[in-house]
């Protein structure tokens, strides 16, 4: 277990290392690579959409292919890019922030990643087998039931597999936060990123089952002759919309809350002040989660639920602006009077505040049920959700990646290139989406593959496409920065930002056991307390002793691979049923192997630990 053994690892051993890892820091890197790959795929699809809409009556993409690209852009960005990138951040820093040596269930953590990975690959194989899903990312019945070919089957089964992974990751973080906090790390001393990830995990626990049920019904309707969404046979097509949005609305809070958490870490660190209104931030997070469960029908105002239902959901939706407003003001008050350093994560945070506020404001406009009849299914809605998701979640993800990059890889991304990335992306973003508000108000419907000339839509669409190219160039600058920084491999100290929380008190990247001795937490922002009142090092809460670590395992990979193979059998049926047999045998066999084999892990001995320095950030 000495570090020198890993110095000259061949490509094969690195691959084996990552296939079998149960270390949360390596799983974070896997999530990062997987999420980044799908982010680029989704971005490419976005560029195809914008090129198609650059001029009226364009024939760049066929109508059918446009539907597929549009569906896959939404599905990929939400399920396969934003969620895994957030899981990358959670895996990388959440255990470190609470002073834990790993997550509660390292094996389940690996299983969660591989299920996501195979679900995503499954979904994207549809491009090569006769057409991707084409019923929109919301896959409303009855369109999704009658959609020809196997596209929507890839959607329902692929998301089912990926969804299992997400559910497991959520449960894992819940148990980790409840049970694995270091001595002194009370709930009200947890960093805000840990808090928001915790609450997002609660939302995952309660929201994803609705998606699971919905996808099962859709799968059975399409593949096994069920009639859940068929009114002729006593079914009801609206049930899908309800189930989808009972999951789908909490889902957007699952995405945005961790991003809020990132900004709540970045802003205090670079304003050199503790977070203003910490307890109200926690309270607001819980309130958003609570309200998030009773607003789903605001996606369905035009379905015909009746004025009473519409009014209730409209009021509940507007109420969410209150806790969100509390957060915005707390960030502003944290900045007030702080010693602000304009580092790139801070610039992302500062760009986020006005952008997200605009998105929130159009959200309140949309929440007004009567007005929504005008906005519904127009580009106004497209502009709104890109303002909150790109302006909130994506800026949050990049702020977090740049901020925690040293903790994940031990290197610091080039600040100058980060600023270039921010400005290209930020200006491009507003060029692309600000004008779409007006395109919507002028009557341009969303999801249409083209539009007619002479309706005053030409210029704004052209500008919008130009903006998309700015965003693409910005992303390429970031990728170049990553490659350049990792090639150079210049190591930095464990605390390059002079930050406040526990993860910065250990080396970068941390040793595989994270904390040599469990840290003693004396308050909120524990590292800052030690910097101000102590010697700048976290005091240990236990004497140096043996550390219990989990063994690596290929079983999570095999369980997920089995479901991936079984998916094809279920979809194509006939002679392909044999694949379902092989797949489920692999999955169940791997689970049986895991259950019957006693795996009690191993110990890192005290003597080995003593050779490796004091485990502090120096």
């Amino acid at each position, binding site marked *: 277990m000495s570090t020198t053994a890993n110095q000259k690892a061949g490509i094969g051993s690195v691959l084996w290392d990552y296939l079998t890892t149960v270390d949360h820091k390596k799983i974070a890197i896997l999530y990062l690579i997987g999420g980044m790959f799908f982010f680029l795929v989704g971005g490419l699809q976005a560029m195809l959409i914008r090129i198609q809409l650059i001029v009226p009556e364009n024939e760049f993409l066929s109508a059918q292919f446009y539907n597929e690209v549009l569906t896959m852009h939404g599905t990929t960005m939400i399920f396969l890019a934003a969620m895994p990138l957030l899981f990358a951040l959670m895996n990388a820093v959440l255990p470190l922030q609470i002073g834990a040596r790993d997550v509660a269930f390292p094996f389940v953590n690996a299983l969660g990643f591989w299920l996501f990975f195979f679900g995503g690959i499954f979904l994207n194989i549809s491009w090569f087998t006769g057409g991707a899903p084409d019923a929109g990312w919301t896959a409303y019945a009855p369109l999704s039931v009658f959609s020809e070919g196997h596209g929507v089957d890839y959607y329902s089964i692929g998301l089912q597999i990926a969804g299992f992974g997400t559910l497991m990751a959520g449960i894992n973080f819940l148990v980790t936060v*409840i049970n694995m906090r270091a001595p002194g790390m009370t709930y009200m001393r947890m960093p805000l990123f840990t808090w928001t990830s915790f609450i997002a995990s*609660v939302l995952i*626990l*309660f*929201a994803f089952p*609705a998606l699971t049920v919905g996808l099962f019904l859709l799968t059975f309707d399409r593949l096994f002759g069920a009639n859940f969404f068929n009114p002729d046979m006593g079914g*009801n097509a*609206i*049930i899908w919309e*309800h189930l989808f949005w*009972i999951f789908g609305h909490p889902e957007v809070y699952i995405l945005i809350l961790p991003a809020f958490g990132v900004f709540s870490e970045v802003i205090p660190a670079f304003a050199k002040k503790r977070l203003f209104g910490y307890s109200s931030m926690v309270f607001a997070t819980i309130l958003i989660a609570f309200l998030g*469960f*009773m607003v789903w*029908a605001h996606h369905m105002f035009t379905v015909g*639920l*009746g004025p009473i*239902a519409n009014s209730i959901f409209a009021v509940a939706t507007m109420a969410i602006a209150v806790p969100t407003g509390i957060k915005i003001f707390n960030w502003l008050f944290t900045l007030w009077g702080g010693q602000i350093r304009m580092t790139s994560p801070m610039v992302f945070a500062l760009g986020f505040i006005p952008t997200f506020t605009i998105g929130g404001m159009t959200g309140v406009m949309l929440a007004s049920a009567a007005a929504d009849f005008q906005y519904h299914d127009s580009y106004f809605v497209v502009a709104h959700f890109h303002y909150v998701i790109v302006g909130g979640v994506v800026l949050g993800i990049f702020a977090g990646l740049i901020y925690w990059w040293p903790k994940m890889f031990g290197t610091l991304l080039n600040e100058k290139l980060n600023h270039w990335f921010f400005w290209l992306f930020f200006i491009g973003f507003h060029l692309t989406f600000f004008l779409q508000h007006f395109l919507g108000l002028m009557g341009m419907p969303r999801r249409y593959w083209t539009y007619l000339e002479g309706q005053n839509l030409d210029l704004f669409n052209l500008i919008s496409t130009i903006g998309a190219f700015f965003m693409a160039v910005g992303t390429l600058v970031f990728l170049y920065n990553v490659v350049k920084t990792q090639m150079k491999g210049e190591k930095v100290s464990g605390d390059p930002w002079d930050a406040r929380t526990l993860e910065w008190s250990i080396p970068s990247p941390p040793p595989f056991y994270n904390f040599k001795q469990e840290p003693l937490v004396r308050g909120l922002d524990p590292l800052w307390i030690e910097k101000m009142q102590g010697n700048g090092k976290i005091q240990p809460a236990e004497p140096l002793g043996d550390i219990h670590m989990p063994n690596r395992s290929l079983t999570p990979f095999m369980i997920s691979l089995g479901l991936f193979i079984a998916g094809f059998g279920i979809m194509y049926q006939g002679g392909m049923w044999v694949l379902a047999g092989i797949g489920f045998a692999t999955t169940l066999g791997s689970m049986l192997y895991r259950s019957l084999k006693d795996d009690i892990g191993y110990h890192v001995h005290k003597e080995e630990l003593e050779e490796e320095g004091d485990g502090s950030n120096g």
Partner: protein
Amino acid sequence: MADHTNSVENSEKHEFYKKKHREQMKHQVVTFVMMIAFTLIAFGLVIAEVSAMFTIPIILVLAAVQVLFQLYYFMHMNEEGHQWPAVMIYSGIFAAVLTILALTTITWW
């Protein structure tokens, strides 16, 4: 001396836990008897062919109380250190009830 105080403490502790266990046992027996009574009442109402408008709500209420007995007395949710399971169970019930309520009122009714 130290040994002596320890043994006194231990016997006190022992007494305390003995008392506690006795109390727990009493609670479990009482709830068990009540649960049997509830089941008999439910069956009795059906056998006696009392109006369905009366029987159905009564059975539902009895069922809910039985679930609470089960959780609190047999699965120890009334003891310390069960706040998180309680929070999670009630949040789950809240989300599920909200869903069912909304679907019954605006879709199925």
